[in-house]
């Protein structure tokens, strides 16, 4: 692989510098660097240089859901979104609850080569919520699993949750909880409030999320373990996490791009594209999660990229699938909602979309500083151009993007995975 020099980009959105990449690592950073003869030059005046993005919450659907997405299509979409690593959720078919399945997913990621694929292991066998899956075997496998989640389902049994939190301490793992009280959400379709009352769709109360988060932070405190809260969506959840952090509980929390931008008003047309779990909440909740992300209560942004075949969405709301795609729109939405509004700096973006997710997952290869000698997992992002979202033109196999027709900012100029371009000028670059 020949050397590559990025000229004029601003690391973390700060002072411009040239960055020389060679041998898969950052070889030099400085003003007016001299490039080797054969080095490829990327002119990046005005662009932002970030560590490659890391998504702690992706549904790649393989194995079992290849009609919606494969590791190949999902990771290509990730690369186009600026990601150099994704953490693949366990709710596949078969469920990623054994070393065999997580190793297979991991290997498929390596074959595809668009970004690192770090499998997330199921907490309970078959996501059944009855008995713990072989967590240690998954941790010790080639996939080196550190994050465990039954995402899509809540680990509802408090004893099982306690045991899981205790068990992962042996290998410094973390339980990523999908906080949803199943009894309070039987048949639930959308956020319970003014809009659900009018639309006649069964309500999904905020308390169904908040009560589980409250219980779990107390459990994590009690047993002294690490808890990660997936896709937090309500103002009350932000308050509870803020309170827990003040008490010193080892808890981290994530918010999705869609919960930073969209509200339950979107359900009014009964377009199931906007049906998602947890549901879109109110304007006040959107403001609360933005504030929580800005003040550090919420640690990371994760996509919860959830592709579905068209037929699963093109139907009556109550029988349509939950979820929306998000890998290719995550940074544009974050830029629009948080950066362009002055609430996060680009250095904060590096923290919430790269460094902290990697730290939570104990991945030492990703989310690294922009420094000489570090692996060249990089994103060159031009925040100036805008484009209109056309789901059919995205790399993800599914079209259930909630941003159809919306104009969003930013463009992926270059993504490097250990020095090798995976995206150039907005186009995917296949491995030679």
């Amino acid at each position, binding site marked *: 692989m020949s050397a590559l020099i990025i000229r004029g980009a601003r690391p973390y959105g700060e002072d411009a510098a040239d960055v020389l990449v060679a041998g898969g690592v950052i070889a030099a950073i400085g003003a007016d660097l001299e490039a080797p003869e054969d080095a490829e030059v990327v002119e990046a005046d005005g662009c932002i240089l970030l560590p490659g993005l890391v998504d702690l919450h992706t549904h790649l659907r393989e194995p079992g859901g290849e009609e919606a997405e494969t590791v190949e299509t999902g990771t290509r979409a990730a690369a186009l979104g600026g990601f150099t690593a994704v953490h693949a959720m366990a709710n596949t078919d078969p469920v990623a609850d054994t070393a065999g399945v997580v190793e297979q997913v991991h290997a498929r990621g390596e074959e595809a080569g668009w970004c690192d694929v770090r499998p997330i292991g199921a907490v309970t066998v078959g996501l059944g919520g009855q008995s713990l899956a072989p967590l240690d075997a998954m941790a010790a496998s080639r996939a080196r699993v550190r994050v465990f989640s039954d995402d899509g389902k809540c680990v509802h049994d408090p004893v099982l949750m306690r045991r899981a939190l205790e068990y992962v301490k042996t290998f410094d793992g973390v339980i990523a909880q999908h906080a949803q009280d199943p*009894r309070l959400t*039987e*048949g639930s*379709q959308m956020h*319970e*409030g*003014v*809009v*659900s*009352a*009018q*639309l*006649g*769709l*069964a*309500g999904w*109360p905020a308390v169904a999320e908040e009560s589980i988060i409250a219980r779990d932070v107390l459990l994590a405190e009690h047993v002294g373990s690490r808890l990660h809260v997936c896709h937090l969506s309500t103002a009350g959840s932000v308050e509870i996490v803020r309170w827990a952090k003040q008490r010193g509980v080892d808890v981290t929390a994530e918010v999705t791009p869609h919960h930073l931008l969209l509200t339950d008003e979107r359900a009014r*047309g*009964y377009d199931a594209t906007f049906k998602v779990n947890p549901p879109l909440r109110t304007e006040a909740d959107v403001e609360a999660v933005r504030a929580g992300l800005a003040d550090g209560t919420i640690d990371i942004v994760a996509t919860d990229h959830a592709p579905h075949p068209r*037929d699963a969405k*093109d*139907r*009556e*709301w*109550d*029988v349509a699938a939950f979820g929306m795609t998000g890998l290719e729109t995550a940074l544009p939405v974050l830029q629009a909602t948080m950066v362009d509004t002055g609430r996060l700096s680009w250095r904060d973006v590096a923290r919430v979309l790269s460094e902290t997710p990697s730290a939570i997952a104990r991945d030492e290869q990703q989310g690294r500083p922009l420094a000489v000698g570090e692996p060249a997992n990089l994103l060159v992002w031009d925040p100036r151009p805008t484009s209109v979202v056309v789901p059919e033109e995205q790399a993800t196999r599914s079209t259930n993007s909630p941003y159809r027709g919306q104009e969003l900012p930013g463009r992926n100029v270059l993504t490097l995975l250990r020095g090798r371009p995976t995206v150039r000028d907005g186009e995917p670059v296949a491995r030679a």
Partner: protein
Amino acid sequence: MKHFISIADLSRAEAISVLDTAEHMAETQSRSIRKLPTLVGTTVVNLFMEDSTRTRISFEAAAKRLSADVINFSAKGSSLSKGESLKDTALTLQAMGADAVVVRSSSSGAAHLLAHAGWIDQPIVNAGDGAHEHPTQAMLDAFTLRRHLVGEDRLGADLAGRRIVIVGDVLHSRVARSNVLLLTLLGAEVTLVAPPALVPVGADIWPCEVLYDLDDALAAQPDAVMMLRVQRERMIGGGFFPTPGEYSRRFALTTDRAARLPEHTIVLHPGPMNRGFEIAGDVADGRRSVITEQVANGVSVRMAVLYHLLASTSEET
């Protein structure tokens, strides 16, 4: 009017216009020959994905009395019961050349989806979608109320100042949602009475009063009392009230409660009734009851709705 999906889509003038048309339709139904040639040559499809014999035959009678051809497409014994999607059904109906589709579904929003998803171009009439709306039921209720409470000069009139109490399972009731919208649009003062668990969270911004005590509501001497069916089959999660007896004690329209109502107060029920549960049999059959009239009025109102959707050019003017 291109579709008839939600009362929320109607203006006051449109609502009154449909009620007035229904009056003319009702007048024709008292003649020796009740069939009108108005919609001859058009085909109305009744797409019923949820069982409802009453509403289906009401729409069928309405369409037939306007000389439309009627095709009934019910869930039972059709491809719908074999899991065919709403989309495929819509594409089929489009290809068959239906001029209007009357749709009933247990899914809130099904009618809206059918009208706006781009699968079918024809006018859609909502015959009840989940817990969302049942706009023709609300129209027939308003029609019945106007006949009794306004009387002779009802053409062009609204229900300004009339006080109407709606009692029962508001949470699961599309009838209640449509009626709150329509009756308040027509100027009536609406009071909902239900156990707290059967009032939707978020209903506090509705343009009506919500009470938990039926006796208080009746003491205010309403002009009409509309009893809702307690939909036990929709009680997901359960525990909305401890026992039917407990419910009836507080929320049933018993003979005693009915006796305390003003002389002119009428009693409505959209049917089918749980006699002895939400309404005493003697009240349902009593002199205040307009329940069988509601059924007859349903045909006139649905004739009016089909007339407004089908007996005009589809081009905007």
